[in-house]
């Protein structure tokens, strides 16, 4: 499997690289965001979009990759980029929910409660067309529907996690990579 890890100048990309290696035994090719415009998505079997600072609007070069048909897994900012590509919106988390950086949170993911690491100030407040929510935060959102913690496309091989499987605060992080690869039909 040819694995591309796109780095949005983030400080957790190497952790993600190590997690991908642990889950797949494949060394991913790590490429900075600035290099993507010269890269061909079809050269890869799977693309992982790293977390990153700012707002998804700052990362327009992913459009080509998301429309390529190549499976894409987006982590944190990566998920927001996928959501934004399909018309979803991103806004600040409600102030009443407090900080969500370097803290564990419980999510409900396909019927199972899982503890994951959270690093985000922004969240997908509306979900893009064709995307299905697959995990939400168990903590109540007083200002609206539950906070989206994972989503996937209904007909394309695209999946996003708002949380950080590569963090030491997420138990059994490799499971989330394997879960995505199963969805992409890249592993059993």
């Amino acid at each position, binding site marked *: 499997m040819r694995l591309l890890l796109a780095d949005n100048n983030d400080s957790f990309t190497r952790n993600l690289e190590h997690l991908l290696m642990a889950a797949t035994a494949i060394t991913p090719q790590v490429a900075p965001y600035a290099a993507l415009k010269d890269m061909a998505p079809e050269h890869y079997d799977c693309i992982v979009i790293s977390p990153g600072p700012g707002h998804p609007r700052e990362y327009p070069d992913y459009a080509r990759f998301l429309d390529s048909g190549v499976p894409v897994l987006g982590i944190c900012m990566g998920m927001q980029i996928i959501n934004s590509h399909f018309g979803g919106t991103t806004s600040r988390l409600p102030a009443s929910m407090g900080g969500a950086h*370097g803290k564990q949170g419980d999510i409900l993911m396909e019927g199972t409660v899982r503890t994951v690491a959270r690093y985000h100030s922004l969240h997908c407040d509306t979900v893009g067309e064709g995307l299905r929510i697959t995990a939400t935060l168990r903590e109540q959102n007083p200002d609206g529907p539950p906070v989206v913690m994972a989503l996937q496309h209904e007909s394309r091989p695209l999946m996003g996690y708002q949380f950080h499987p590569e963090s030491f605060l997420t138990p059994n992080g490799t499971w989330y990579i394997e879960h995505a690869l199963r969805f992409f039909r890249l592993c059993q």
Partner: protein
Amino acid sequence: MPCVFSASVSSRTLPALLHHLARTYHADLLLCGPLAPAAAPRTERSIAGIAPVRELELHTDTPREHLHDFCFTPCATAVSGTIGYLNYTGGLARYGIRSDKPENSPNGRADQKPKNWPEDTPESKLADRQKDLPEGLFRQYAIQLIISPAQEPCSPPHSVDGTAGTDTGNHTARHDSRHDSGHDYGHDKRHGKEHVLECHTAEILPDSLCGKQSAALIDELKALCTGVIPPDPIPAHVAPLSRDALSRRLRQSLDRKGYVRGVERVLEHIRDGDTYQLNLSTRFDADLSGTGFDPLTFFMHMWDQHPAPFYAWLSHGSTRILSTSPERFLCVRDGQVLSQPIKGTLEFESFTEGMEKALTASPKESAELSMIVDLIRNDIAACCEYGSVQVSAHKETFTVDRLIQMYSDVRGTLRSGFTCLDLLLDAFPGGSVTGCPKQRTMRIIEAEEPHSRGLYCGSVVFIEDPQNMDSSIAIRTGWYDSITKALCFFSGSGIVLDSNPESEYRETLAKAGKFLRALAP
């Protein structure tokens, strides 16, 4: 690297000896302790470098290979083992961040004062001089004195097992053992404790060193270290200023109002997703002209009164660097990597039972540390074997500088073909003093802080060979300019989403407290 003599030195005479070496022979010093037996993080050796014979200044365009060659190519005229530092500001270039701030200007700009900057008074007028510290400085010496605890005469300069325990489950045990020593980080009160001092020289010595015949210098050092000639006593530390005088002569790049506003702006950046955590600092400049201030006496006083594992005294031109750091950045021992980031702080006047638990139970302080642990995991991962990066201890505590602090142990194994210098340069600057994600956070720091950090938040390092190194994060650090008679020092605090701006400002004052109290009790 011949060992030309060894000696036994007691804790009682060690401070005067170290002071004498720096005063008379202009030794550079990397000093551990004096630490209580159970103190952690810790390092096990103090090193004095005498008679520098090779020096490499690093600049933005210095190829990494030059530093590798300097540190790792054997040289008959120097003892192996390199003492050096990396300047935080030099680390900006790696992230594509340009800094135009003059490094030794209190306000960062020679021609423009920050708002709320106090007016100059005749006695507080400081010369704004352009950079006088290079971005990095590495030295090798003709003579090295290595001082280790007597029970470990051949102990390494650091221990990758450099704590009282290694498993997360040892949390309580560590506390118990430290409580037996009276809750404080430092003060090994066993004044009779012996140290082993070894004097190593280069294979080839020049005819003269430090203005003396080399052989005569070695004899003199031997007499001094073995007690035949007693070292000069350290002059008593006298605070150079009254509180009133200090308030007149002290300037801050970010005063209370400026710092609070800075924190508020940083909080907006956090809410916008630009950063998770940002370390915002302020610079203090004290005009000490006419006070008779002696930086070396001051440094030795700090070392005696505020023990910490990573003290450093380095000279460069008219500048005397005083680093009093408790924080390890990266230690590599035979390829095994240890980083011990510190985050989470509780100030106290008198220690009471339960304080540590209050700190470790705080969601805010815990999150501060966890973020940096993930950042350090990431930063060492680039040079570490897949699968080797582990958090072996999390939310441990120790006390230093009247503060309870939390730290973690992050470990890894250096990849084949990588050196400790690769690790140091790739991971620099330390994540605990930038914040996360690093690049954008450093950009925000550069915009928000009116001063240049210079060496503050850089690292002081001791490099032995490609697989062995120890380094500090240069916090609780400053430097004295013997021309302007100005002492600058810095302190900062990690800003997170649930930070209270006033509380964060108080934390920066608490971290600067030992400098402020030593200047004016």
